[in-house]
């Protein structure tokens, strides 16, 4: 359908106005909301991610594409919820205690939403007990946390320890990210995976929920 190609293009070029309009028209014309997400929005965000990986897109492009995607998703989300559609996974996300750098975290949250995950964003400077409360309340199966500074990244370790102490570590997968994080560090603190960028985070989240 030619009209819906416009939705894909609007997200790819970050035109929130157009993506919202096209989504409204499509829904009014009886398009299946699930199909809009699966056939146009997720592929568009995948392409955004690919361009970012290839250095064609940068942080600003990623953010404006995410905004366009969100504008459409806000129209679609209530419809999906009403029919009880299951998301790809439920993710609780936040920057850990002591860290308030959230640009990377916001990108990951947006990309995960674009990929069909339900994202519960706890914001910045999130203490372990707040993560635990949200995980329990929302029955989430995935937690994503980030720290930008070498000085704050140890909060990720204490948060994972708090999951263990609360007896919920076995029920969830933990993914981490942020500039100072390395594969070695992820292993050391017992995370299930790490990613250096938002696109990789989506692939990782898909892998973790499938595991």
């Amino acid at each position, binding site marked *: 359908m030619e009209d819906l190609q416009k939705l894909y293009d609007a997200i790819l070029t970050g035109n929130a106005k157009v993506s919202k309009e096209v989504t409204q028209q499509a829904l009014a014309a009886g398009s299946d909301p699930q199909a809009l997400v699966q056939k146009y929005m997720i592929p568009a965000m995948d392409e955004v991610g690919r361009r970012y990986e290839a*250095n064609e897109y940068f942080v600003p492009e990623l953010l404006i594409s995410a905004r366009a995607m969100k504008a459409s998703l806000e129209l679609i989300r209530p419809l999906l919820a009403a029919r009880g559609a299951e998301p790809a996974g439920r993710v609780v996300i936040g920057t850990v205690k002591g860290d*308030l750098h*959230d640009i990377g975290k916001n990108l990951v949250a947006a990309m995960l939403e674009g990929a069909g995950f339900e994202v519960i964003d706890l914001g910045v400077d999130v203490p372990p007990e707040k993560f635990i409360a949200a995980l329990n309340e929302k029955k989430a199966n995935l937690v994503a946390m980030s720290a930008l500074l*070498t000085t*704050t990244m140890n909060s990720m370790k204490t948060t994972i320890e708090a999951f263990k102490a609360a007896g919920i570590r076995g029920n969830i997968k933990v993914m981490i990210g942020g500039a*100072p994080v*390395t594969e070695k560090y992820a292993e050391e603190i017992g995370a299930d995976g790490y990613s250096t960028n938002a696109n990789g985070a989506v692939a990782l989240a898909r892998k973790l929920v499938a595991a």
Partner: protein
Amino acid sequence: MSEPVHIRLRPMGVDIESAKGTPLQDLLFSYGVEFPCGGHGKCKGCRVRVLEGSLPLSPAQEHMLSQAERDAGWRLSCQCTADNLTLELAQWEAQILADTSRFSFTPRTGFGVAIDVGTTTIVAQLLDMSRGEVLAVRSALNPQARFGADIMSRVSAAVEPGGRERLADVIREQIATMIAELLQAAGDPTRTVTDVVLVGNTVMHNLFCGVDVTPLSYYPFEPVSLATVEFTASGLGWEVPGDPPVRFLAGIGGFVGSDVLAGVFATGMHERAETRVLVDLGTNGEIVVGNRDRMICASTAAGPAFEGARIYMGMRAATGAVSAVRIEQNTLVCHVLGNVPPRGICGSGLVDAVANALRLGLIRAGGRFEDGGSSLTLAAPVKISQTDIRELQLAKGAIAAGIRLLTREFGVEPPAVHEVLLAGAFGNYVDTGSARRIGLLPFAAEQIQPSGNTALLGAKMALFAPAGTFDALAKRIAHVSLSELEGFQDIYVDEMIFPGGEPETP
């Protein structure tokens, strides 16, 4: 006993004897090589090229270095140990920025030492205080740099067990050495010193003074103390003739320290009716907006792109660096420092190259090369990569957003600012037209005034100022945390984009 090995460093022609297996980081550090990420294999700042011998690759190196780089013999020295080798260093000697401005003062008797303790470089001057004359100058790399290039990696190192003492010891030893060298250079090592003044950012202040920096390691980043701390030379274990008092001046707030305070004092912006902006363009950028009635300041993490670090062929402004780029007949023409073949690019060259490539339509406003390529050759073999442009976008975005947010917070539009004072080495070498073209400075050319090392000048003026002058001034400047201001993320991201290519007045 380990097997002795021999390492030759090129292009300096230095020969080092060592024991096989010694970390190269330890050996190279004493020859001025810096380790921007702290030697964790997370950047390419310390890379060396193996000309003779061989160094094995580790997984960290395979991750950081491209196949072409690995094939050309590049290795991350922080991941390697000593063997029989000839190495080419990617980094060259440090840039010195001493201050030679005149200033008014009330003569005092005796000799004073003023020291700007930078995160990267320390500059010290010995003054005859009866004449205000600089008798000698010394500069050195900050020896804490081996624990990381930026202030947060220093904080990280300091909160480890024994870290606080270790970082205090190395900086105090270095400065004691520099004072001895100043006296030596001025011709009389027994000359009595009457006063020593140090300035630096909050982390430099706390680490020198032995203050616990743990609260600087997490939000809301509030130091335990930023007050003026007074030692005696003997109390620090220094043997300085006359056993003078040694004062590290008070900071302002957050990460904004006495170097910026000294800068405000040196420029006199606190005494003028018109509103001025002071910008120190460094790895950690600092901005002050104000006039005699009100002043606010903030810091912003720009990263090391302006200093040529974390840039593919980046280097300091030293021999062989492309330091300026201009347009001639629609092509880019490079100026190379020292009249030698080009071998790298420094911060000012990078800003020029990107500004002129934007003018020629070779780079789009979003930062992508117009032709979709991955690099742009400036003067073979020197080129800028797509990733370099991204690094510059992050750095200039941080500064420009800081200026935009802080002027908004003050309630002044950028065009209404009387004067924009650029402090620091990069601020003095960067072409202001290029800085404007990439959107680093949202001001008109006639507003911008390069102002030299205002921190060192202010430190010298502190030698003459009545006691308490700087503490009183610090209290007049309010610190603002940029990331807590409304719209921070949107403005930061907007400022990563280059301004449109509309014609500009020169």
